[in-house]
């Protein structure tokens, strides 16, 4: 069973010519339709995140500033990111969708969640919009789960590093953030030596890979570097920041993934959920509409345990040598940071 949010009319959050556009959710809905789920697809009403729910991850002054900016008509927030008059209510709905989906999963105790929202969220910082993102949707849900006593794993396979999510949970021992991403690339963060703050050492696992990376390399990085950390963390919930801009047809970056690779990654991530009803997939990037449609269908098919036809998985790309360097850089940083923590505790 797939539980997803009702998509509101998001046509008001648009900047002509901008790649983060309403057609993206049309492609996502088409991908959902391709699955032909029938009664196995449950659509729940959208709801806005409350101010208190947003305050778990965002600063109040930033929420006030963003809301006021939108009500005054919006404009360019930075070189990449825009907001319109309608963006504030739509961003609140995007942030609330994950909360509603997780509530429904909890009530039913079964199923997989799919949070189909825009604007995306994983670049949004506590006090700043960035990289097309206004509010950090996956972080709002992770923080709500954390407040309920859960241990939350966020797996982010968007081709860009989720600097906002990393920053928000930098020092939180109850949230583990794992990211595969192209590097160097926007936003410039996400190197292996970023391992979390002193209160949450090893709470961040960054797996940067070069342009041209294929699905086998991404999967190997997750298996060899992230899997042992995830096992030790023992998550009670798994949230996926599912960006599909790592697809080979996407214009925003240079990974060489296929929809079949996303299916493989989704199967792997679904296997990390400790029980039924504890996995939710959040839409992040993905700007080629055809690739987005097919990758969404392949991903959701995989998490539901089905094998809908998708493109063949890819292999043979560069990046295998980077995995060893990542292991070594993480190990040496962890040693240093643990020594630093021991010194601070001793003093």
């Amino acid at each position, binding site marked *: 069973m797939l539980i997803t949010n009702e998509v509101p009319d998001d046509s008001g959050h648009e900047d002509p010519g901008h790649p983060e556009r309403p057609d993206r959710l049309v492609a996502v809905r088409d991908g959902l339709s391709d699955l032909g789920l029938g009664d196995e697809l449950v659509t729940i009403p959208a709801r806005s995140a409350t101010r208190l729910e947003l305050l778990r991850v965002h600063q109040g002054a930033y929420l006030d500033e963003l809301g006021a900016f939108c009500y005054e008509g919006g404009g360019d927030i930075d070189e*990449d990111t825009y907001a319109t008059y309608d963006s504030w209510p739509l961003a609140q709905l995007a942030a609330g969708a994950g909360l509603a989906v997780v509530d429904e999963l909890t009530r039913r105790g079964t199923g997989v969640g799919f949070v189909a929202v825009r604007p995306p969220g994983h670049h949004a910082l506590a006090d700043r919009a960035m990289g097309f993102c206004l509010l950090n949707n996956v972080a709002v849900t992770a923080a709500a789960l954390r407040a309920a006593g859960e241990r939350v794993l966020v797996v982010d396979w968007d081709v860009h590093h989720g600097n906002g999510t990393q920053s928000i949970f930098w020092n939180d021992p109850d949230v583990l953030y794992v990211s595969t991403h192209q590097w*160097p690339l926007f*936003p*410039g963060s996400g190197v292996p030596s970023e391992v979390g703050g002193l209160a949450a050492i090893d709470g961040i696992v960054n797996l940067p890979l070069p342009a041209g990376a294929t699905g086998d390399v991404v999967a190997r990085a997750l298996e060899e570097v992230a899997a042992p950390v995830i096992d030790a963390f023992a998550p009670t919930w798994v949230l996926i920041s599912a960006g599909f801009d790592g697809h080979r047809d996407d214009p*925003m970056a240079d990974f060489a993934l296929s929809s079949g690779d996303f299916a493989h990654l989704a199967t792997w991530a679904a296997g990390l959920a400790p029980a039924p009803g504890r996995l939710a997939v959040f839409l992040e990037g993905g700007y080629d509409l055809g690739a987005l449609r097919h990758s969404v269908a392949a991903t959701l098919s995989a998490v539901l345990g089905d094998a809908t036809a998708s493109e063949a998985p890819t292999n043979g790309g560069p990046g295998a040598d980077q995995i060893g360097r990542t292991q070594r850089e993480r190990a040496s940083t962890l040693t240093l940071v643990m020594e630093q923590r021991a010194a601070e505790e001793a003093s």
Partner: protein
Amino acid sequence: MSTHPRTIAVGFDGSPDAIGACSWAMATGRYLDAHLVLVHARGLLDRYERRDPRGLLGGVVADLAARHAFDPTRLSWHVGDGDACSVLLRCGAAPVFADLVVVGSRGRDEHAGMLIGSTSLQLAERSPIPVVIVPSATSAPY
């Protein structure tokens, strides 16, 4: 380590403050006989629209070099993917290998009202190499 900078990186986004920073870096670089690297942070839309800062801003830089009698053969560009702060923080390492980084007080996206923008402030806090923040021409004296 040399006693004075041999390679100066200057954050350059074409904003008035960046032009001020570039002017300062050219005047200083000429005096020190240093190489100047114009560092441009490439954002999501820069990449999507395949913008090349050398084409868009090259004329401005050529005018500045002429005004400051800075040898254009000692100028080069580095376009790095990321936000301005993260790209400038990497300037001390390959491929730029700068000894000094120069920025204006506020970047193109940073609104007036604060004396120093967040990029300059973060850079000053976190940079592994020395940082010069060139005040905006419109900063009130105090």
